[in-house]
């Protein structure tokens, strides 16, 4: 693995005696969208917590491995320094500050940034999500689920991160709204922000990502280009819900196979 972008190497995490991640390695190259797929309890959110250094809120700790951004170690920093280094997470379940106004939520998001360029960041999120400008004075708790997800993403963008960590952005949203969020993620990436996307909605995630990793019980069991993973019989059957007999044939026909299976 090269040192450019976000690199996770041999990361192990435990919650007390329970090992939640075992020697997980992945890479988010500069400007890429990378997705991590997996069922409930596979360790997807734990992976993001380990990167953003918030495991301690859940009684967890990194027991081995490294996380670097352009070669700089992040795994010994406090959460605020991880944000300042350029990695910001949108937590699962949106977690907007419900009692605060939309505008104050965005101000809170900017607290982790450098301070300069706040107005540019605000202009960017208002351009991405015009509804947030219209509802600036409204309490965040009164927004719809989709709008709250927009606010959660916008709040993270206020810190002008280089890498955006998205934890289940489509969770609980209507298909139309999930597609809209996906379009926005694509737009954010086009503007130069790398994205590490953790999703249960594998179809959506694989459409967005260039590379994908499959996590099972805390271990990376499959990784490769997203297009190839989409065509893989195993992924189609287990994560895309495709059960037709052509799936295996499709997978066989996929040329230039570069999927790698973990040999642990």
């Amino acid at each position, binding site marked *: 693995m090269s040192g450019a972008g976000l690199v996770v190497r041999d990361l192990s995490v435990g919650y007390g005696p329970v090992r939640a991640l075992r020697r997980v390695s992945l890479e988010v190259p500069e400007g890429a969208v990378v997705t991590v797929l997996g069922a409930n309890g596979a360790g997807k959110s734990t992976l993001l917590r380990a990167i953003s250094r918030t495991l301690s809120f859940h009684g967890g700790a990194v027991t081995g491995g490294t996380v670097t951004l352009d070669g700089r170690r992040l795994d010994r920093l406090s959460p605020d320094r991880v944000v300042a280094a350029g990695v*910001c997470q949108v937590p699962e379940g949106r977690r907007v500050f419900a009692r605060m106004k939309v505008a104050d939520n965005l101000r809170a998001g900017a607290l982790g940034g450098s301070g300069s360029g706040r107005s540019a960041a605000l202009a960017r999120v208002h351009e991405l999500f015009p509804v947030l400008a219209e509802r600036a004075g409204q309490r965040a708790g009164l927004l719809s689920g989709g709008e709250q997800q927009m606010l959660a993403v916008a709040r993270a963008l206020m810190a002008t991160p280089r890498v955006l960590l998205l934890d289940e952005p489509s969770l609980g949203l209507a298909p139309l709204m999930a597609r809209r969020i996906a379009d926005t993620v694509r737009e954010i990436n086009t503007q130069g922000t790398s994205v590490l996307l953790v999703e249960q909605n594998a179809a959506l995630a694989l459409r967005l990502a260039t590379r994908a990793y499959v996590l099972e019980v805390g271990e990376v069991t499959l990784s490769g280009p997203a297009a190839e993973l989409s065509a893989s019989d195993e992924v189609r059957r287990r994560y895309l819900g495709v059960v037709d007999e052509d799936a295996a044939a499709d997978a066989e026909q996929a040329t230039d196979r570069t999927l790698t299976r973990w040999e642990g």
Partner: protein
Amino acid sequence: MSTFAEILLNGLSLGSVYALIALGFVVIFRATEVVNFAHASLLLAGGYVTAVLHDDIGFWPALLAGIAGAALVGAAVEFLVMRRYRGTDHSVLAIVTIGVDILLTTELTRRIGTDVLTLGDPWGDAVLRLGPISLAHTRIAAFVAAALLITAFLLAFRYTSWGVAMRAAAESAETAALMGVRLGRVSMGAWAVAGGLAAVAALFLTVFPTPGLERATSLAALKAFPAAILGGLDSTTGALVGGLLVGVTESLATGYQSDLTFLGRGLGDLAPYLVMVAILLIRPAGLFGTKELARV
């Protein structure tokens, strides 16, 4: 009627001082979810610094030193003690604050001894007479100072980055951390602000008609506790309303003590707690507190 108006105004003044203390409770609770039982000792520390310095450097510099001293003690307690226990159950942290309170109060009462220390305030025992109503200058000063400080605090809470960080941390510490909020700084700031407010409250709890700062002053500070609880421990508005309610209740109960002798003596001290219990029976989260909701 004039007696009633006088008692009411005195009660509002006293209540505004309680509101300052209650605001300290609330600020710490919102920033850290810890009920701070060491608040009374912060108040005593601030008052003590002002009392020992005013002869040498004058009242106003001594008051500033008292505010800074109490803020420093608060910040030090957070940094040296509370931070070490971060992530521990909040009930445990509350008990830790009782330990801190015992340590601080023991040292301060040892220093104060049996003395009654004056704080050298410029108002003395002067009284303003408005027709039939008499009002001590100290009471007016207390009300004005508390109103100014509370207004400044609320503006800062709403409009500054510090306020946004504190409100974010109060809603969800983890999410605030994900946004880059420095929780340690927010928590230390809350303890420092609470200490500073307590030092101002110490001044107005010990000026005329009270003889001065003594060992029992910290007990008077505890009356702000029902104020914070009945207002709702996580509500700044609740702290203000609760403080005023406790002040007026205490003032009325003391003022009409002679008409209430059948209830026994010391009703003024008891009344705030009775009001707190009555309100909590009707509204368990306090008047403005956030109700705990659970998805089922």
